């Protein structure tokens, strides 16, 4: 059971790629989306199963390997899943499913290519989630990166290629910084495995070349900030989100940047740079800048997807803030906000896909009154936005609350206050968007618009259910945290 579950994270997408490309192109194209569904759903189930197993055995993590002996003496590469990685693996499955559901209606004839690349990007992200050494992390980061460039340019139109190019350029800089940082760390510690590096870094101030390590840290923060789109490293993010095809925006906005940037950053921070207040404090400040900047900038945007992109910058700031607070509560809050953000942001991107498909535009000035014509989309986007703005009892409220409490307690009331105040801006851009797109009188040229039928609405409904259900059931988690003495 456990072997099957863990292996499926990396084995299953590989198998799917094999299956899709062994059969003829026509068959491959026909079955690709369905195969994708299966992979995504099994991944979600496997993540839940692993969580259950962790809980049943009372373990903190499960170590496993794919097809090698992980107990070999020489350089055995261990893969490992803990609760956080399982949560993100679940998110990957969920967002991939939503992306597939959206793609079914929007991607046209490119289903086979799309699914192949989706499987690759899933492999990349799953790899980021399970690896336990810095270089492997870098390799999987690159895989994720490559697959996303190609996905953005999937339709081969000028806009997509331009967005992909910008992403490519910035991502290359980020990769150089990250790789450089890892190299510097390697030269000083002699290892790349998380645990060993952490041990070697415990006394880094007395290391022979401490300044080199500091350079490494700076490069590390900068590199991952670019990948995560933290302000002021966010430049590429709105362009890439806006220019990508609808289903790819869902994927990028929902999970990819968060895996490549936020998750990887948190993982390294927690496993390698243990207890380094300097890095934490820097990230805290960057997180606050990101929160405020993203929210304010989102208020002035004219495009549905760009608003969502800036709101991502802001929400990622919250996640970073929670982790940077350095307390366990903050980390739990960040983890839950990661999940919540994956849920509601995916919902919103699915909604933007529905609007784009039905009206042909995402320019909010040309939209209006769609609530009457597209009720499912309108309601699910309201729910998602309310969750994002932190309105109880929806899921986003709780995770934000935990983060703000954590910052308030362990760092400063000012930081918590700023984060709290920025929520108002979240509500502001939410209202701007809702008013321009869904509320108000119906624009004349939109009278013929109908609700996005089938899988897109299904995705929106499913994700909304998750948002609401998670929020309503949250007291159970609170109780658990309380019992664990975290809260």
């Amino acid at each position, binding site marked *: 059971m456990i072997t099957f579950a863990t292996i499926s994270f990396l084995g299953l997408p590989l198998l799917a790629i094999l299956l899709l490309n062994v059969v003829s192109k026509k068959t491959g194209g026909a079955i690709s989306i369905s195969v994708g569904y299966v992979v995504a759903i099994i991944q979600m189930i496997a993540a839940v199963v692993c969580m259950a197993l962790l809980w049943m055995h009372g373990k903190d993590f499960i170590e496993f390997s794919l097809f090698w002996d992980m107990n070999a003496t020489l350089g055995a590469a261990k893969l490992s899943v803990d609760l956080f990685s399982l949560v993100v693996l679940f998110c990957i499955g969920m967002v991939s499913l939503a992306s597939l559901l959206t793609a079914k209606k929007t991607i046209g004839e490119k289903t086979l290519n799309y699914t192949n690349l989706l499987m690759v990007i899933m492999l990349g992200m799953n790899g980021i989630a399970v690896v336990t050494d810095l270089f492997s992390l870098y390799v999987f980061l690159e895989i994720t990166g490559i697959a996303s460039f190609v996905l953005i340019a999937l339709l081969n139109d000028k806009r997509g290629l331009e967005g992909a*190019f*910008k992403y490519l350029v910035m991502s290359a*800089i980020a990769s150089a910084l990250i790789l450089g940082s890892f190299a510097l760390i390697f030269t000083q510690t002699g290892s790349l495995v998380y645990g060993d590096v952490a041990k070697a870094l415990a006394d880094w101030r007395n290391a022979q070349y401490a300044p080199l390590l500091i350079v490494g840290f700076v490069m590390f923060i900068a590199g991952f900030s670019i990948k995560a789109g933290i302000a002021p490293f966010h*430049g590429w993010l709105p362009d890439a989100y806006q220019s990508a095809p609808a289903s790819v925006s869902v994927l990028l906005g929902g999970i990819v940047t968060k895996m490549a940037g936020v998750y990887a950053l948190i993982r390294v921070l927690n496993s390698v740079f243990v207890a380094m207040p300097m890095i934490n404090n*820097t990230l805290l400040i960057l997180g606050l800048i990101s929160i405020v900047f993203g929210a304010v900038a989102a208020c002035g945007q004219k495009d549905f997807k760009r608003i969502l992109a800036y709101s991502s910058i802001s929400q990622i700031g919250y996640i970073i803030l929670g982790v940077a607070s350095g307390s366990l509560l903050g980390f739990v809050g960040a983890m839950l906000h990661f999940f919540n953000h994956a849920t509601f942001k995916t919902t919103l991107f699915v909604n933007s896909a529905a609007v784009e498909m039905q009206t042909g535009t995402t320019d909010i000035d040309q939209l209006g009154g769609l609530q009457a014509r597209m009720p499912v989309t309108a309601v699910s986007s309201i729910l998602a936005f309310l969750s994002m703005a932190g309105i109880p009892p929806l899921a986003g409220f709780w995770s934000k609350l935990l983060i703000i409490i954590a910052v308030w307690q362990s760092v400063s009331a000012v930081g918590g206050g700023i984060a709290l105040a920025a929520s108002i801006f979240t509500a*502001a851009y939410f209202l701007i968007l809702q008013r321009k797109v869904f509320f108000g009188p119906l624009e004349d040229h939109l009278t013929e618009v109908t609700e996005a039928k089938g899988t897109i609405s299904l995705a929106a409904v499913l994700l909304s259910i998750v948002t609401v259900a998670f929020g309503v059931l949250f*007291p*159970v988690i609170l109780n658990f945290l309380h019992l664990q003495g975290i809260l």
Partner: protein
Amino acid sequence: MISGLSSLITSGNGAGLIWIMIVIPVILAFLALIIPKTAYSGRATVLVLATVINFIAAIAIFCTKETTMLMPWAGFEMNLAFRIYSFSGFTVLLIAVFALLVAIYSIAFMRNRNGSGQFFFYFLLTVALANGAVLANNFVVMLFFWEGLLVTLFGFLLINQHSKPKTAVKALIISGIADLLLMLGIAFTVFQTGSLSMDAISGLSVSGMGLFGYLCLMLGALGKAGAMPFHSWIPDAAQDAPLPFMPFLPGSLEKFLGIYLMVRVSYEFYQLVPASGMSIAVMIIGAVTILLAGAMALIQKDMKRLLAYQEISQVGFIVLGVGTALPVGLIGAVFHMLNHATYKSCLFMTAGSVEYRTGTTDMSKLGGLMKVMPVTGICFVIASLAICGVPGFSGFFSKELIFDAALETNWIFYAIAVFGVFLIAASFLKMGQAVFFGKVKAPNVSMLKEAPPAMQLPVVILAIGCIVFGVCNFIPLHLIQPIFGSIIGNHDFSGWPHSATLVIISCVILLIAVLNHIYGYKKTGAALSAVDHIHYAPVLHSIYNGAEKRYTDPYSWLMVVVKIYSYICFGIDRAINWFYDVLLVKIVSFVSSRLRMANNGSPSRYMVWSFSGIAFIIMLFIALM
């Protein structure tokens, strides 16, 4: 389902029963809402099925030994805790009985009316919430169910009234204030004991913070029971809501809940001392309620409004009984609660039957209905005799117990209570004669006939209850007395009242009421105006006029205060509005548009940003080191 239920009953599994009582009505409520209007019998079946299951489960709960159930929920001691014990079991059983009877009545009444789906939906939801509120053993859980009842109340009053939700809003605000007080009371109480669990709280003294705690909890409970000053929505609701709402919520369920809490607060959580200041205060509330509501009942020209005022006045008796803090008052109050629910539900249902057949409850348009609706008429008379406290009927015995307690505290309360009996008797004589006796009069005389059987059945059952609870008053009393065994000891209150003097005084009062009625009838020649000599008496006239214009309605005063307050707030709001709507928006949109222009799509610019970001991080590092 039935077999599962029976096995649950035999195994005495209290926890399972609690879930049945709360979850099944909710599920069936949604079912009733989904079933289309055309399949009315389906809706009706669901309603009856749900109330029957609830009834069986309630019997099982009543027979269960004391059980507590605890499920961890939200942390901080907010557990899903329920407790079955004698009093909660008894109250749940009462709720179930009246829910069943009203359900049977309302499926006949609501047929061919709009909003039956919503009505049944709220009905079942209310049953579930009331069960939960009674069985809860944790203040947070109780509040959850209690507040839920506020929602269903609002929903009931909105049925077919979407365009003029005035009554619903009024009820919501008044009950909301009461619930707010309840919350405050819970906060004070919990603050003293440090526990949210209800069975962990007992015998707090009514002083210091306990005074506030007791007062707020009591006011919250009074608000639910509909005593002064939380009463004024009930007469309006009587006119606006579908009629079965009246016997259901204000008539029985809200009384049970309010008095259940009142008794628990006064005798369990807090130790109310007889003749102490707080005891007198509660009794004053009761006395004022009796007096004012009784006086208002006297002059009503509409059956439903008249019954509503009488009902409020009856609550006064119960509050008076509870407020004495004496065992006899307590037993009298709980017994009166049962009797009140019996005869008042019966009276509302007869009024409903009249409305069902004649289409009106305006007494000036009605008369002599006894000839065409004999069963309804007889039941009305029996229930009236019970409510007036004619010796032998149920109301008599419970009232005598309360009189006993009132006299023991102070003779003034006794005098007011007795005067209240006069007012009620006078108003009933007026209504009874005007509607059921004399010449047959109705908007549609030729089509009149007896109410349908499904509507007669509960009416008849309740009328029989009025007689049985009087003649064989040991039946209810022997159920009630064991509940309060620790308070009253082995004292048995059943049988004939022990003080013959009091009985004689009561009879004299009733006689005076009859004489007064005959005097008024002779004077004006019409039953309806039999109390006009009181209505238009020199001083009373102007008071009544004011009351009719709602000068005595606390709600209208509240609304005046609210209006003034809102004018003040409007001014402040304007200023704040300008800040948010104009200034802040301008600043944000300015900054935002600058940022938008900055993000011009050029990768080189992004790179410059990134490198300045790196420089920033380096500076941060230097600063932090």
